[in-house]
């Protein structure tokens, strides 16, 4: 039951020996240590209540409760360690797993998650999130990008141009995350790069959450006319990656901007059997 750790020359990540969850991240280059717990949760989709008949659906995110439920409080883990890769494989449930990965020379932690098919046999629509919890004092602020360009400051329960009456404490604080979301206490910054557009928020100080998958049983009555209930094989499973960077706040932008470029314009692989013939343009 010793602590499980993966480490390269820049980053170290530790996992709780009892739960198998990520519990600590270190930036060895800058001597930064951040206790961070990451786990998967799900919101129970609202089907309407006494305040509003609005159901969660394709257009609308409306959880029935503010607190999400654990998919699992622990993960069965398997460790792969070679000279070229270190991976912790976490299995949370039959429909949720993750590989936490480090390559040599990499300045970020890679979390490759696989979610689905989301079970709905209990007649509850589910909206699945990955959440990172830290003790960073973020004073209600977090940052998301706008179409991969300008980073915008987001403040919980607040809009800069009008007096907000917050009626949806969870959904009302969700924002689009096209490429990245981060939190900072002014000294340290935790950034998560996404490989696709997702919804994200920081519902309490020091926390980041990103919605990775959803399966709903009711239409939200906004025009689609059918619930977000994928039944074909291709849409049941979702696999994606979150790249997590821990940096000093004043130098963090260099790291996440360069890494985001590398993700957007990732190398492409083409294979051949290698018995080709010489090719001339003419």
């Amino acid at each position, binding site marked *: *039951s010793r602590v499980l750790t993966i480490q390269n020359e820049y980053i170290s990540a530790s996992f709780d*020996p009892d739960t198998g969850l990520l519990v600590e991240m270190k930036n060895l280059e800058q001597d930064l240590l951040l206790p961070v717990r990451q786990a998967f949760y799900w919101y129970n989709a609202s089907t309407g209540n006494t305040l509003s008949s609005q159901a969660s659906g394709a257009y609308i995110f409306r959880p029935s409760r503010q607190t999400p439920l654990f998919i699992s409080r622990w993960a069965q883990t398997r460790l792969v360690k070679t000279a070229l890769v270190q991976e912790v494989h976490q*299995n949370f449930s039959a429909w949720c797993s993750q590989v936490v990965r480090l390559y040599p020379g990499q300045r970020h932690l890679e979390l490759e998650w696989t979610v689905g098919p989301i079970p709905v046999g209990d007649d509850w629509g589910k909206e699945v999130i990955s959440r990172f919890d830290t003790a960073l004092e973020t004073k209600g602020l977090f940052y998301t990008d706008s179409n991969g360009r300008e980073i915008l400051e987001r403040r919980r329960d607040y809009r800069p141009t009008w007096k907000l009456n917050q009626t949806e404490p969870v959904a009302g604080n969700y924002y689009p995350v096209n490429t990245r979301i981060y939190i900072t206490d002014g000294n340290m910054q935790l950034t998560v790069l996404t490989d696709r557009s997702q919804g994200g928020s920081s519902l309490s100080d020091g926390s980041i959450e990103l919605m990775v998958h959803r399966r709903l049983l009711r239409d939200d009555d906004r025009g689609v006319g059918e619930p977000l209930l994928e039944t074909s094989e291709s849409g049941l499973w979702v696999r994606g990656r979150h790249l997590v960077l821990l940096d000093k706040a004043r130098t963090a932008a260099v790291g996440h901007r360069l890494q985001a470029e590398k993700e957007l314009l990732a*190398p492409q692989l083409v*294979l051949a059997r290698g018995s080709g013939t010489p*090719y001339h343009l003419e």
Partner: protein
Amino acid sequence: SGDSAPLNEAMAVLQHHDAVSGTSKQHVANDYARQLAAGWEPCEVLLSNALARLSGSKEEFTFCRNLNTSQCPLSQTSKSFQVTVYNPLGRKVNWMVRLPVSKHMFLVKDPSGAVVPSDVVTMPSSDIQELLFSASVPALGFSIYSVTQVPGRSPRADRPEPRFQKSLSWIKSSSRVRPS
């Protein structure tokens, strides 16, 4: 002949939020997927032609569309093959190539013919073996690596044991998290 126009057009159609946010009816989502797939096919021909011209060698190029689920028939069945790594970024990158392979050992050579370090790793919870090697690719350019199967089986073919196993009865009876 190859053509990138159909993919251009499909991408333009897919700018609509319905295509990325799940706000379309299912048959519309299916049509978006159809347009993308149809657009990508002539692009593969275009890329093959471009690579043939740039490398001076005409190959039967294969694009492994299911690498995210560790599926690539060519790398999983061939005893030797070439891997062309194209870097669209304006600076040199080092990138870890991961390819599903058969249960063997492999020798990987870089474009100059030098052997590069590689590993064959067995993925836990599956029988899939993946070949890993680090590729160095110039800015806006490509590198061709050769992979050859060598005699012997992968030394890492054994499955690692799970670290944590808990029973359902334990979850019901205790709120504190402990390994069994």
